[in-house]
């Protein structure tokens, strides 16, 4: 559970930092880099699906 949250934060960190670098003109938003951001977000989705659910079906708070 802790490791899952850690991995989610890590992938979010990749997406957030990269998009911010695009915005600040630090990195060129090439198709490859945009794919990297999408991969990170897809990984977040996959990881979220692995989070244990409470009995009422909601995910526990992060």
């Amino acid at each position: 559970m802790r490791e899952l949250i850690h991995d989610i934060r890590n992938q979010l960190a990749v997406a957030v930092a990269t998009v911010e670098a695009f915005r600040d003109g630090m990195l060129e938003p090439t198709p490859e880099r945009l794919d990297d951001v999408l991969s990170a977000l897809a990984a977040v989705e996959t990881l979220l699906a692995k989070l244990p659910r409470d009995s009422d079906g909601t995910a526990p708070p992060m």
Partner: protein
Amino acid sequence: MEGRTVLLVDDEPMLVDVLERYLRDDGFTVVRAADGPGAVEAFERSRPDLVILDINLPGFPGTDVLRKIRAIRDVPIIMLTGRADEVDRVVGLELGADDYVAKPFSPREVVARVKSVLRRAERPQAAAAHHERRVGAIVIDTVAHEVHVDGKPVTLTPTQFKILDVLAQHVGQTLTRDQLLERVSADGDVYDRTLDRHIANLRARVEPDPSNPRHIVTVFGVGYKMVAPT
């Protein structure tokens, strides 16, 4: 911050790319490592001024890297962490990192932390692990800029505070008048002829008996020194 070297350790290449780009833009030289052993090797090779270290690394954990690095040389370390529950341990007494940044983070924020930690580390009076200096009955808090004598707060002028702090950094060591002036008067606002008056005023506030100073002692013909009365 031109010319400073930052060792950047994270196993996520994209994050390292982004941070490297921001740090280079600010004039830093960046050395990268992606795992624990690589980090220690790069640290010894590149002698960085600061280390940014992910706590979760392949090879061995970032916490081990921190200990190994600190055993080689004392250098400011900023930890990157993906877990809120790690923070206390990271910046607390156990590991003693200088700062931490939680993931996800803004790269600009990381650069700002790097600069602030470097500034702090390069100010000698704040570089000590503790913010407090104790000399006899006098306790100096270098962060809050407060002085207590026998537990009671004492109000000092900024110049008096600086003189006291400089003397307290060199307990038992005589500082010449020139050395004192040079360290106290960064902006040239203290002159040789006023130093004695500042010292007298300072003694009036921190010495239990100012006419018989026991903390701030005159070394005749040389300067002053601070001693811890026994």
